[in-house]
């Protein structure tokens, strides 16, 4: 790789004792200034990949270069050029936000005269200035995540690793963090490697997406290209009466193959040439009453389903139903 702010991974494997291969030979490239979304269910190998790329876990096989340096032979140089907010916001509950900044700016070797200003600048930018002198133990989940990201940025990293940065956050905190990540890539040219199990996050934020399952990358490309590979939209009908669900499913089956639908509803992936108007006419002709009829464009979940035979949404919903952040 000629550009020095990117990521290049070739055949990286990580095996744990008496366990399966957590990462099973992945190859990927992330261009400088790009936001790369690494999407997969729990246990797919996302965090293990991040730990290896951030030099905290040596790979069993393969090689990788981050910001132009080999992650095994030149770990210190890699660490000097990267920032990372790992899966759990690793903060000391007894320290204040400002204490964290002071510690991080010192350990990262910023000149003495710059430390306070850099800490204040980041606390302000991440919306934590008012809470800077409060102990982190009293922060909400969103505040902790933002502080975690701020700490990862103190030494002006060229590559930023964010491991599931918005898990457990409310929609507002999630949106704030997305805006900051997008700004970093757009305005400062920071390369972002973002793992997530939220389809929407990858769709909204990532320039390119890699989908990992069982330690292997099963699909990679821009969200638009991946969805275009699936091509055809699906149509979902919710019956007015539950008893009419089978009748509706029978009508829809004329237009394509069944796909997963909401509880009590029926859905099919439309075959080429079929459209919603034809579906409405067929339902009307059969005199079945429909409460709602929706046309879904292909989503990344459809991509995941097509590549793995499973839906990612189930994992996502389980994660989303975990306790949301507490109030500050």
């Amino acid at each position, binding site marked *: 790789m000629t550009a020095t702010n990117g990521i290049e991974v070739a055949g990286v494997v990580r095996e744990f004792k008496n366990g399966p291969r957590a990462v099973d030979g992945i190859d990927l490239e992330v261009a400088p200034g790009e936001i790369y979304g690494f999407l997969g269910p729990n246990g797919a190998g996302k965090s293990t990949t991040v730990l290896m790329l951030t030099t905290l876990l040596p790979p069993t096989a393969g090689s990788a270069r981050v910001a132009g340096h080999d992650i095994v*032979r030149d770990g210190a140089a890699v660490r000097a050029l990267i920032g990372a907010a790992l899966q759990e916001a690793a903060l000391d509950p007894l320290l204040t936000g400002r204490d964290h900044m002071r510690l991080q700016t010192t350990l990262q070797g910023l000149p003495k005269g710059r430390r306070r200003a850099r800490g204040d600048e980041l606390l302000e930018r991440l919306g934590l200035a008012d809470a800077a002198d409060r102990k982190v133990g009293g922060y909400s989940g969103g505040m902790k995540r933002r502080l975690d990201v701020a700490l990862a940025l103190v030494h002006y990293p060229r590559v930023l690793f964010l491991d599931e940065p918005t898990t457990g956050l409310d929609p507002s905190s999630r949106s704030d963090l997305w805006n900051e990540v997008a700004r970093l890539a757009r305005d400062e040219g920071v390369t972002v490697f973002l793992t997530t199990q939220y389809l929407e996050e990858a769709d909204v934020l990532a320039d390119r997406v890699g989908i990992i399952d069982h330690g292997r990358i099963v699909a990679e490309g821009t969200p638009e290209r991946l969805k275009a590979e699936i091509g055809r939209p699906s149509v979902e009908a919710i019956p007015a009466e539950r008893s009419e669900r089978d009748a509706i499913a029978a009508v829809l089956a004329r237009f394509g193959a069944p796909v997963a639908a909401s509880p009590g509803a029926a859905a099919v992936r439309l075959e080429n040439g079929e459209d919603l108007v034809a579906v409405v006419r067929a339902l009307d002709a059969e005199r079945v009453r429909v409460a709602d009829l929706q046309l879904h464009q292909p989503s990344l979940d459809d991509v995941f389903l097509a590549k793995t035979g499973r839906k990612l949404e189930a994992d996502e919903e389980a994660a989303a139903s975990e306790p949301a952040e507490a109030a500050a």
Partner: protein
Amino acid sequence: MSLAEQGAEMARRSILQTLRQPAMVIPPIAFPLVLMAVNVGGLQSATRLPGFPTDNYLNFAIAFPFIQGALFASINAGSSLARDVETGFMRRLALTPMQRAALLMGNLAGVMTVALCSSVIYLVVGFAAGLRFEAGVGGVLVLLALGLLIALAFASLGALIGLRTGSGEAVQGVFPVFFVLVFLSSNALPRELIEQDWFRAIATVNPVSYLFEGLRSLVIFGWDGEALALGFGVALAIALPAVLGASAALNTRLVRT
């Protein structure tokens, strides 16, 4: 950035952690003083035993808070490092250019600073209550030095356990073991005046006895080379392997390429 600067920042963090937890500040100061007061009140008559080295039990008992304070230092050091493992803070540190030694050095320095402050309070209370110090001002400084070395020894043991287990509960669980060692020592009576043979035998092989005797020798006898050599020697014999063990455990915890 120098190791000293990194260590100083980590020490500052350790001191802040302690000061922001009243449960980590008040018990290490109050409990040893209360126990000492109880012993002095209840065991003053022991000074009438033939061969008891002083006529004021306070002079004998002043060593107790130093040892008990050192036990609290072990809990503070171990709990703090275990929490860093549990919360993932250790990984954050691993991603910085921090030298591994700075973490341990800073943690122990912070704990020992708190131990030094506690020691001064023990002495101030002791002098206010009538403590006589045979070794003079120099002896007070040597007592503080030995007290700090003992605190370092126990804090390093706590750090070793905290880093090896990564569990605050495990660190807390070791406290009763240390406490038993304290009570099966010459903490309340000189070894030669312990009547029960088994107790005297245990107290004689228990290294904690020599820590007590080294500390109190300065108060009661002045400059007793043998007692001081044993006190400093035993404290070093605990501290050195504990520091080395904690360093090795830290290397395992702070893995990076």
